[in-house]
């Protein structure tokens, strides 16, 4: 996860991409080629994320102590988040 200052740094490439994509929308080969590049970049990102976690000894060391509580809290959190998002979707007819 980014620090607060990074939020702006993430919005800029996204918005620039959307605007550029809008003007290039009649270029058929664009999405074909880009999909492959995106897949490759996802793997680089996920590998780097794994690397960041794996190289953090403090983080790994605390896992066994809080693991069970964390799993219970995570399960209830995910359950209610999904239910509420689904309810909001129905309510707002999205």
């Amino acid at each position, binding site marked *: 996860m980014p620090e607060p200052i990074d939020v702006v740094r993430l919005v800029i490439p996204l918005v620039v991409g959307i605007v550029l994509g*809008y*003007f290039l929308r009649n270029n058929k080969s664009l999405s074909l080629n880009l999909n492959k590049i*995106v897949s490759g970049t*996802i793997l680089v990102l*996920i590998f*780097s994320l794994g690397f*960041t976690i794996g190289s953090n*000894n403090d983080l790994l060391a605390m896992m066994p*102590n809080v693991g069970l*509580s964390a799993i219970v809290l995570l399960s209830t959190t995910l359950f209610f988040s999904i239910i509420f998002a689904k309810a909001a979707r129905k309510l707002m007819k999205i």
Partner: protein
Amino acid sequence: MIKYILIALALGLVVGYISNNLGMITITVIFSEHSYNISLIALLFFMGLLFGADKEAVANMKRTGIKVLVFPFAIALGSILGGLVGGLILKLDLVASMGVCAGYGWYTLTGPLAGQIFGVEWAALGFAVNFLREITTIITTSLTSKIDKYAPIAMGGATAMDTTLPVIVRYCGQDTLITAFSSGFTLTLMAPFTITAIATLAH
């Protein structure tokens, strides 16, 4: 694709662990900072390009419009209620367990902040709950996207604007890009405020 994602994650964990324990600081910095940041920014740009060029996705987005902003608030409420119920099951301090679940997956914030507000033992739990939220979202998106198109966005919470975004868009469709990003963005802004607000309510 999910197979390769899991392999990349596992490989990253192992290589990161080995490199850190061998004291290879340069390699650690390259992967955990440079390649992480560059690939993230490149992905956002490419996904923006694909979205902008996708007529159907843009039309879908226009149809839903401002209504997508209901998602982050629903997800925030769901997360906090989840913290309450989980805290009841585990017989924990309910305020603190709601607080750590209001990190919405942002573990680098929630760990230190929960430690400061609720005490040292909550730093570890705050870190773990939110870190596992990110990992679980990456691992299960290919399955949960079949239950509900927006379930992975709810699971990802604040991380839906960066690390889990590419995986969500891949499985939930191009038209979920803006919904996922704006939801993650809003939750990222909300996290520090809701955690401190929950803590203040207790006093």
